[in-house]
């Protein structure tokens, strides 16, 4: 089985000209980007570094001044390709006169989904983004965050192989942010590829396998998160609560070796603290006119809940014969774990890919992710222990 690039750009350049045709701004400069199958890739950079321009070129909303773009082995404007892409722009640009259900129904129709599949998926997605109770309210009356949730739901309605998210967490409350991050992790587990742009580094750090840091349209650094962030001259040990005697012993051992040591109880993240408070309020059944999400207590529970949502989402199969042959959206039923290499290979064996010069490497993603996930899970388990245990 060969591993393939889901997104590949060659010397991609975009310059913006003035009225007289003179080049004024180089938004993207000679970008050679490769996003592999089943990778969560982050485009990071300050405002105006060219992140959104890259995404727009990938999606055919802007034409490259120079260079080539391949998405899923072809042109993203080709319906066969775009039917496998989910896209969330930097803001949710929705029709204010449609209600939430009609909005999702409209996008579902554009993907050529039949009415049964549309209905099933809309119910699951509305529930997932916590807007089931507001399904019949016009989008025009939604807050920015609520619109963002509908935007996310529409990006998932076709069960995409590739998800392109532009600033996915902007405008969302911490619960929504957490949910998006859980979702990205869960989608990656299911073999999907995610390309996201963000300037919220903490969010990107948590979910991305690989990042590219952009400045002035140029990639300044690119690599695996661990490789980029690992401090090679320090060691971190996390344990359960230790008594004073043990701490003293550890200190002595380290100092004997000539090292420096600092010991203190770990801090809870503000995000998880916030989620705890909201969960308590929900349990007390306090009223809200905003989005309502079921917040599970632990990381594992949350992951299980998200997995459940995605299971339901792909459970609604396309009835063949009801959709048109050429336009068939090729919504691929996703295996729960692992990559759907068969479909991807079919897609990427087009002539366009033969032009790609890159040798193909063996990809070890699923193994790596599970290790990373394991670490994260342990830390989070630690954090969400009852308070008494954490205090000395």
């Amino acid at each position: 089985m060969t591993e393939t690039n889901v997104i590949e750009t060659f010397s991609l350049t975009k310059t913006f000209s003035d009225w007289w045709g003179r080049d004024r701004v180089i938004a993207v400069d000679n970008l050679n980007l490769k996003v592999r199958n089943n990778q969560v890739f982050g485009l990071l950079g300050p405002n105006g570094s060219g992140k959104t321009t890259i995404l727009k070129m990938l999606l055919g909303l802007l034409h490259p001044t120079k260079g080539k773009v391949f998405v899923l082995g072809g042109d993203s404007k080709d319906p066969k390709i775009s039917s496998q892409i989910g896209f969330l722009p930097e803001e949710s640009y929705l029709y204010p006169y449609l209600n939430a259900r009609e909005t999702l129904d409209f996008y579902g129709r554009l993907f050529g989904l039949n009415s049964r599949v549309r209905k099933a998926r809309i119910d699951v997605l509305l529930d997932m983004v916590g807007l089931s109770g507001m399904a019949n309210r016009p989008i025009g009356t939604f807050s920015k965050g609520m619109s963002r949730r509908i935007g996310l739901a529409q990006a998932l309605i076709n069960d995409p192989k590739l998800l392109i998210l532009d600033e996915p967490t902007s405008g969302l409350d911490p619960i929504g942010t957490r949910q998006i991050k859980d979702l990205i992790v869960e989608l990656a587990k299911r073999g999907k590829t995610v390309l996201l742009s963000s300037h919220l580094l903490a969010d990107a750090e948590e979910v991305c396998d690989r990042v590219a840091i952009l400045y002035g349209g140029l990639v300044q650094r690119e690599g695996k998160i661990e490789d980029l962030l690992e401090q090679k001259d320090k060691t971190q040990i996390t344990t359960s609560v230790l008594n004073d005697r043990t701490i003293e012993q550890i200190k002595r051992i380290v100092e004997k070796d000539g090292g420096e040591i600092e010991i203190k109880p770990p801090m809870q993240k503000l995000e998880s603290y916030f989620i705890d408070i909201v969960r308590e309020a929900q349990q007390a059944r306090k009223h809200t006119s905003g989005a309502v999400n079921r917040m599970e207590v632990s990381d594992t529970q949350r992951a299980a809940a998200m997995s459940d949502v995605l299971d339901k989402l792909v459970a609604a199969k396309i009835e063949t014969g009801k959709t048109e042959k050429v336009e068939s959206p090729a919504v691929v039923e996703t295996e729960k774990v692992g990559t759907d290499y068969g479909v991807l290979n079919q897609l990427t064996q087009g002539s366009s890919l033969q032009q790609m010069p890159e040798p193909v490497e063996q990809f070890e993603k699923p193994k790596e992710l599970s290790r990373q996930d394991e670490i994260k899970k342990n830390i989070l388990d630690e954090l969400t222990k009852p308070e008494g245990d954490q205090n000395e």
Partner: protein
Amino acid sequence: MSRVWAVAKNSFVSAMRMKTAIVFMLLLIVLLPIMSLTSTGDGTLKGRVQSFVSYGLGLTSFLLSILTIVVSCYTLSSDIKNKRIYMVVTKPIRRFELVLGKVLGVAVLDFLLLFVFSTIIYSLALEMHRFVKTSPEELAAVNNEFFTARMALKANYDEGVVSTRAEEAYKNLQSSGQLSEDKSKQVIMNELAEAARHSLYSAEPGGVVIWEFEKVKPADTNDSFFVRFKFDASNIPTDKLFYGVWYIGDYRQIKYGQDKVKTPIYTVARKDVMRMVHEFQVPADAVAADGYLAVVFYNELENNSTVIFSEEEGMEVLYKAGSFAENYALAVLIIFSRLVFFAVLGVSLTTWLGFPVAILICFVAFFTGVINGFITTSFDYMGNNMAILYQFTIKPFLWLLPKFDENYNINKYVIDARLIQSGFFAMAVVNLAIKSVLLLLASFIIFARRELAKIIV
């Protein structure tokens, strides 16, 4: 196709929920019944019905055209301006499907509104005799002259007679030495031909005018046909009334002195007001078996004035050739084809222009359509001086513009109960269809190549 319908449904819902269509619908719902009660025309039932249908259909067509222009210019341009297009074109839909969907949405809206309001006008027109006191004669007149569809024939025109008379007149002038030296022979001949043509259809006191028609084919010989005329005069009496005797039948029987009159020749003595359109009914058996018919007007001596019939509206023979319902439906379909044209124009323009510019161009096209004849004529005069430039610049552009006046004014057909012939219908619809297809093709090409995202760095 399902994607095209999805976009169509969305733009239809947009127009309904943005309240644009509702405002126009309310206007029509309020105005049409009021018009049915207040329109009086010439005071007769026929006049009332004519003026109601004329204004009703005109108003519906006008308001729906404006609505179509507003909605079609708004639907795509607002998606682009508000960036909603990002989340649409990145889905598996071809850009031309998006343009088609937008046009289809507006067309469906037009179809529904036009269907509802033309049905209302039709029903109110049928029931108008209940609103006012009506005599049986008036009811018969409205049924025979309005709720029907009639074929209208113009008299045959003998150019040979005209040129002979013009040449004779020229020779007379020449021999008497009255030829103007300032004008060329061609100009003088044209003037004389014009005068001769005029004289064909004018009668001095005691004189006659003869019109000859061919291919008069009333559906039923027991039925009747109508003679429709309008005249002017050299001396105008205070009451503007003129006396005349009309002979209608196969004139050849008298002209060639046949012994026995085979088909009846009807004589009608009338007094009519000048400069108004009049109609009278004649039994259909006056028409010869080969479809020949002549109408002769005798100008009574006591009128003491020459009576002049114009070439355009002077004389027509009309006979029943179809039903009012069919004719009305065809007229409504022609209005619909115009609305679709405007839907195409609006959406096509916004594939590369913003809302304000697109709507301006649409309104210019609309009002040009209403006075197209006037504009074409005035440009044609200019064209004489700049032939080549005109031929390749303004003329093709004028061709692209729609034409709703003169012969294309369908109101005229419904009001005078003239049959909309299938040839005319096809020409009117096909003409707009060709223009619409050209516009659509151009917009597909432009839209497929256009960068839809704004440049943000």
